[in-house]
């Protein structure tokens, strides 16, 4: 039997790696992929708690997170392709159209 704290520590480590990717990398694609990693670490936490407390609602919320993530990635990549058509850059710092 694996203690739940191992899962929680694994989720925390993956979350921090994803946060490092979001904060340090300037490539839009890698920022999006790091966001995926962070969402996945949250899923690990939810399922670990659901398993530990014998409650299937943890899995259900993880299913919803996966569905919302699919929608988010589709929209984000659509916006990325549309903005790359007008502005030929992949750097996050250069995408400042909405800056007031």
């Amino acid at each position, binding site marked *: *039997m*694996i*203690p739940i*704290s*191992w*899962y*929680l*520590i*694994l989720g925390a*480590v*993956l979350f*921090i*790696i*994803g*946060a*490092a*990717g979001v*904060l*340090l990398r300037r*490539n839009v*694609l*890698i920022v*999006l992929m*790091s966001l*995926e*990693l962070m969402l*996945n670490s949250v*899923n*690990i936490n939810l*399922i*670990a708690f659901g*398993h*530990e*407390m*014998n409650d*299937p*609602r943890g*899995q*259900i919320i993880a*299913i*919803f997170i*996966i*569905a*919302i*993530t*699919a*929608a988010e*990635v*589709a*929209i984000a*990549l*659509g916006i*990325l*392709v*549309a903005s*790359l*058509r007008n502005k*030929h*850059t*992949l750097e996050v710092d250069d995408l400042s159209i909405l800056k007031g």
Partner: protein
Amino acid sequence: MEREFFILLSFVAISTGLLVVLAKNPIHSALSLVACFVQIAALFVLLGSPFLAVIQIFVYVGAIMVLFLFVIMMLDVRKEAHTRFIKKGALPTFFILLILAAEVLFLLTQSSRLHEIMAPEPVLLDEPIKQLSLILFQDFLLPFEIASVILLVALIGAVIMARDDGRKPPQHSGQKTGEANPTAHKPIISKTIISKTIISKTIVPKPIEQKQQTTVEVNK
């Protein structure tokens, strides 16, 4: 035996997760993210939720990462290999990340409430997937429908975002720029929607500038 499996899977998951952030080429980071997702799916099996593991592989590895790889292949990633990996001024970010890591790990290991929760030993449900589906379609029916509507809206939104707005069909600008400067980088999108007359006026000087910039960076 379970613990050895957990250690193996989490080690590979963390190392591939690090590779996602550290790899220069976006294709390498996408592939290592695929590996990381497969490890996490195996961890879900260890946690007694095989349905989530299957969904993880279908949706994340089968759909989302293939979408990422398609977008990466549509773009030109060769320029990315020349840009600097971590820019100046990243030191405060490192500091904040260290604080975040220390805080989260401290809370996880030292919290007394958490250890109270961990105490009771789990009782396995009979037919866990049946329980899961019953709860999903009874208690969570409205969120389920809302999620399906969100997916539909995302589908329509992605189609409208990535559409060409009825402008001119894409033309390959390889010939003109290639004659002007054969070794220069192409524009970052391989298919442009600008007509050729505009290309000859505006796009041709750009690759020369880009090349000069990259050579200066290399010399530094």
